[in-house]
């Protein structure tokens, strides 16, 4: 598990690559702009620019550095990738392709047939295909193996019917990795199949999901006799759960590596910062001398610092094998807890000064953050707690026959029965 210190090729080759990358990036990639979001699907121009950036990387010979040459990659080892990301530190990278690179490509490499790999990996590398994951359904978010979208084989096509929700950027994606039920007479994990679906195909209708704040990066999809070619099954029919597990593992690994902070996590020592924004708040509220207000800010300093140090510790520890990969679930849980606690502290700090947005501002307020911060996307904290408890701490599962009885004999939502 520990990182090897010997590059796979000569150091000269690596240095040459690094210099070429430096030149290419300087000439071809836009700079990273402080405050610009990694992903914001509502800002269509950002999405479009990321397609161009990925296309530029492809044309410059820097796409898919560690991926096999057979699928359009460069076939180099991870030192080349690290060198590239070192050099790219100051550049805007195509973060809207994060899902495609971090989840879809590993999944295709592990479970995809040659047709899929030959067609879709280069599609990503060329900046043509942005991918989403069609997993959650309105009838149940946390219970992923309980999906009820049906897929039936008719001739050369699987015909999919059902609905999906919480799809990140669904409106702007080209392809999706979609979980559906192919045999409801089997226990719930056994009758699932994973498909690669065309988001632009007839039978797929996509609508944005309006959230509390009034906007959203998420979509809902209705699949109405959506036809998927038989060779677009990823893995084997009725073995979709195997694919889900490696897909989730790829996602967690990428998060533990620090993907949510960009595509790369630096291994340098973090430092404890005391964000000036909290100090500014104290001053703006004229509470610099209020010992209670200072307590709130002091705690905000601590939770932010601990979260940052923990994320980095987990990322480094998982990478060098000092921590089990399940430690990633601890960092996810802490992200949720820290974000929610921060809104409590800042609401208490602001009182009535926090419950409105000043006209002409960005519409935001600490009160609105308090209303809107829940961290449900990506699994509820209940699911994360179960993951930490069962997988990281080894606590026993709850007794259940849910995994053994046929799917179509399970109890389901009462409101659907009535």
């Amino acid at each position, binding site marked *: 598990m520990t990182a090897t210190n010997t590059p796979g090729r000569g150091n000269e080759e690596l240095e040459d690559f690094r210099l070429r990358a430096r030149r290419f990036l300087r000439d071809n990639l836009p700079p990273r702009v402080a405050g610009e979001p990694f992903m914001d699907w509502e800002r269509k121009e950002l999405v479009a620019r990321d397609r161009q950036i990925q296309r530029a990387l492809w044309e410059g010979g820097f796409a898919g550095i560690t991926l096999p040459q057979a699928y359009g990659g460069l076939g180099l080892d991870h030192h080349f990738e690290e060198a590239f990301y070192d050099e790219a530190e100051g550049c805007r990278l195509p973060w809207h392709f994060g899902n495609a690179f971090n989840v879809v490509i590993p999944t295709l490499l592990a479970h995809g047939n040659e047709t899929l790999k030959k067609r879709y990996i280069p599609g990503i590398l060329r900046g043509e295909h942005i991918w989403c994951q069609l997993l959650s359904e309105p009838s149940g978010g946390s219970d992923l193996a309980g999906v009820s979208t049906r897929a039936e084989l008719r001739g050369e096509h699987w015909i999919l019917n059902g609905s999906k*929700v919480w799809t990140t950027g669904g409106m702007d994606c080209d392809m999706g990795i979609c979980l559906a039920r192919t045999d409801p007479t089997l226990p719930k994990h056994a009758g699932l199949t994973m498909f690669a679906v065309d988001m632009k195909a007839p039978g797929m209708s996509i609508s944005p999901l309006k959230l509390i704040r009034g906007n959203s990066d998420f979509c809902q999809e209705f699949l109405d006799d959506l036809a998927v070619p038989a060779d677009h099954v990823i893995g084997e029919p009725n073995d979709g759960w195997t694919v889900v597990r490696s897909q989730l593992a790829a996602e967690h690994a990428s998060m533990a590596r620090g993907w949510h902070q960009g595509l790369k996590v630096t291994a340098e020592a973090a430092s404890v910062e005391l964000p000036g924004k909290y100090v500014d708040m104290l001053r703006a509220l004229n509470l610099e001398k209020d010992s209670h207000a200072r307590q709130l800010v002091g705690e905000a300093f601590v939770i932010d610092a601990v979260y940052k140090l923990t994320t980095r510790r987990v990322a480094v520890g998982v990478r060098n094998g000092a921590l089990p990969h399940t430690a990633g679930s601890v960092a996810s849980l802490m992200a949720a807890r820290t974000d929610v606690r921060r809104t409590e502290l800042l*609401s*208490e700090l602001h*009182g*009535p000064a926090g*419950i409105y947005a000043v*006209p002409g501002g960005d519409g935001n307020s600490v009160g609105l953050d308090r209303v809107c911060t829940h961290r449900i996307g990506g699994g509820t904290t209940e699911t994360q707690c179960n993951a930490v408890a069962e997988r990281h701490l080894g606590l026993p599962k709850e007794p259940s026959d849910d995994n053994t009885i046929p799917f179509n004999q399970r109890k389901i*939502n*009462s409101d659907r029965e009535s």
Partner: protein
Amino acid sequence: MDVIVTEDQRMLQDTTRRFVHKRAPIEATRRCVESGQGFAPETWREGLELGWVALFVPEAYGGIAEYTGGAIDAAIIAEELGRVVYPGPFLPNCVAAFAIADAGSPAQQAAWLPALAQGECLASACFAAPGPRGGIEPGALRVSRTRSGYVLEGTASGVQHAEQADHFLVTALDEQGAVSQFLLPFDAKGLTTNPLDPIDLGRSLAEVHFHGVALGEDALLGAHGAAAAQFERQLQLALVLQSAESVGLTDRVLEFTLDYVKQRYAFGRPIGSFQALKHRLAYHAMQLEGARAAVAHAARAVREGAADAAAAASVAKAHSGKFATEIIRDCLHMHGGIGMTWEHDIHLYLRRAVANEALWGATPVHYERLCRLANV
């Protein structure tokens, strides 16, 4: 010690709940929110006909104060209005009617009380200074004596329904810090309203600026420089009504959340059978019961002018405000993704709860006030 202690009060609760269910359900609140039109005037007028404000108005001025439980009855109504996140100006109009009945001259009572009871007049209160720790003390506005009367200067913050109000109950301090109160129309010269963009979408919020607003002697409510005690009584009433509303918000959210978790299945079980949710819901029910007890006691203490009324009102406000937010936030979480969507009603409740926690003195302000009441 229940808020409901008499048959009349139980009837009042039933009547209000039926009325609200029919004429002002949460769907009506959502329509108000989505249209951006504030509250629906016809529902408000119908509520007034049921005596919503008249219960603070003596019979001589067209009210029913002699036959009601005052703050206790108003708290019963406020709780029901909380259950639908009612957008109308119940609290400020009750407070204004109470203030005038409590401290107004006969002429003021005759001029204002019938109008308030019947909805010909819509009042809101201006007193709170902007900033994080305001909401329970006059301090925003400065009053000076002039030859012919008074002049007001300053900016009042946290004014609810300011745009719909046609009159303001204003509390100001003079140079010495003595408290005076005034009643004035919204179009008084020098008065301007600056609407804010509140997180509670069901209720408008504004700053009201006073630039040399000149008033005659007849605008004075109570004695000049001696209105501190009457302001305190009004504050206590406001705290009781807002706390009761927060109880109503919480009660309704906990109700539909319990329904939801009993019906929603995951992993082959209703999610309400999972212990993590059950235990959190048990604590929520416990804190809500605490809020009910605190509000019921405060309503009675305020109604009776009991020695512990000030402390009881702050206890009710601190507890109900804090736990309305905590409970509703967690209930939203228990709904999973659906609770995060605009279409689900729960965010309307949470928005109101977060606003209530902050307005009329945020929780820290009431903890601090309790220390002062304990003479420390």
